[in-house]
């Protein structure tokens, strides 16, 4: 085989190819998004009964809505990561993916990017919906809210894919993902809720800069941990 043909795509291109593959599957079936949207709606429903609109108005949306939103996003990320790694179990497609002549860390980056984009799509639906259901000013909060949501979703997608890879290696392991992912991402949730609250209050992000630093540090740390360990999780 000539050396050129065996080289394969570079890491960035490979990342995009893997992510695009997952997104194409998602756009054709909407399996993951449909489950995530319906699940999040149920979360809104449950919280809607727990504190009705009068309570939300009395306490202020900024007190309650961030917790509701991130509860929905957190559990949705469990669904999304399970599904993203579960895709690769069907018809041995994980083996095919591992045979690709690319760096294995690009596989991680690609899967995480695909999950990140799917979660972002979910958030694009859920944020306006939550504004309707819980009556807060999304347009006013948006400039601060969007970077906050993006920063914290990155961490969720990274850790979700790494831990999702761990649990797909186990025959009955899918139920374990929530036990692993939710406790491990506690720092991210705390930061997310605080920053979302600040954004909804219109306080600006300077007030929560240390939280943003924690979230950014979390994202960077687990990005490198995942790059280093993802290959070890997947190898046979």
């Amino acid at each position: 085989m000539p050396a050129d043909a065996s080289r394969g795509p570079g890491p960035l291109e490979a990342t995009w190819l893997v992510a695009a593959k997952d997104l194409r599957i998602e756009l054709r079936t909407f399996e993951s998004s449909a489950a995530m949207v319906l699940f999040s709606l149920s979360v809104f429903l449950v919280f809607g009964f727990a504190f009705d609109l009068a309570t939300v108005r009395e306490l202020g949306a900024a007190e309650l809505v961030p917790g509701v939103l991130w509860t929905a996003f957190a559990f949705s990320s469990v669904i999304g990561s399970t599904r993203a790694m579960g895709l690769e179990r069907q018809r041995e497609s994980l083996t095919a993916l591992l045979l690709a002549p690319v760096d294995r860390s690009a596989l991680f980056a690609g899967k995480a990017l695909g999950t990140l984009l799917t979660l972002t799509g979910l958030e694009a639906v859920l944020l306006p919906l939550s504004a309707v259901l819980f009556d807060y000013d999304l347009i006013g909060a948006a400039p601060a809210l969007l970077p906050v949501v993006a920063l914290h979703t990155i961490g969720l997608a990274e850790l979700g894919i790494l831990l999702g890879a761990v649990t797909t290696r186990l025959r009955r392991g899918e139920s374990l993902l929530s036990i692993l992912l939710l406790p491990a991402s506690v720092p991210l949730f705390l930061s997310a809720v605080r920053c979302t609250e600040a954004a909804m209050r219109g306080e600006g992000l300077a007030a929560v800069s240390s939280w943003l630093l924690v979230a950014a540090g979390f994202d960077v740390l687990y990005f490198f941990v995942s790059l280093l360990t993802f290959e070890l999780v997947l190898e046979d």
Partner: protein
Amino acid sequence: MAAGDPVRRIARALPGCLLAATALAMPGALGLVFLYAPDEKVMGAVQRIFYFHVPAAMATFASVYVLLAGAAGYLWTREERWDRLARASTELGLLFCTLVLVTGPIWAKPAWGVWWTWEAKLTTTLILWLLLAASVLVRSYADSRELAARLGAVLGIVAALDVPIIYKAVDWWRGQHPQIFRPGSPAPLAPEMKHTLLVCLLVFALFYVLLLVLRIRLAALEDRVAALLERAGDPEVTAP
């Protein structure tokens, strides 16, 4: 394992020596806790659980550090002895963390009036317990010993790196709320209390090392049995 004879002899005698030392020191520590240390003025006798609680917490943290070392060592070298260290540390961490979580509320109820507060140290310990328990589950679900070792090592690294971040995050989270209870405020200890605590810490350290050595030995035996069964072609072989 190509160690010289004297080293081997020491290694073989180590568990026995540790066992003897722990067996002698443990009643001594109990004597100090119940006879020598004075009653705490406000909390009374129940405060004595502190002499078990604090050393158990120290042993938990020691386990997490050793777990990180074992996990990194295994992923780097792929030698089974590093995995045995990581496996033993995961389980010991879970054991001591359970002790911390059980003794803590017993102490907290008379001291602060509640069994539990969502304060940084407590919350971090609970999350650590969940992560360690999940690691033990993942290891037991894995189809082969080698897969269990790899997944366990990755989870060990994730958990160990997470603990300081969780602590800091929960600390800030709580810090912005009015704090009714001030757990762990450094009250000056009476000298008798300090001596008792120091002895208890030493005894728990001995106990921890003893359990670690025994668990690693057990793991080595488990691995040998599994290898023998594999060689005999037993279809029932699964991860330990």
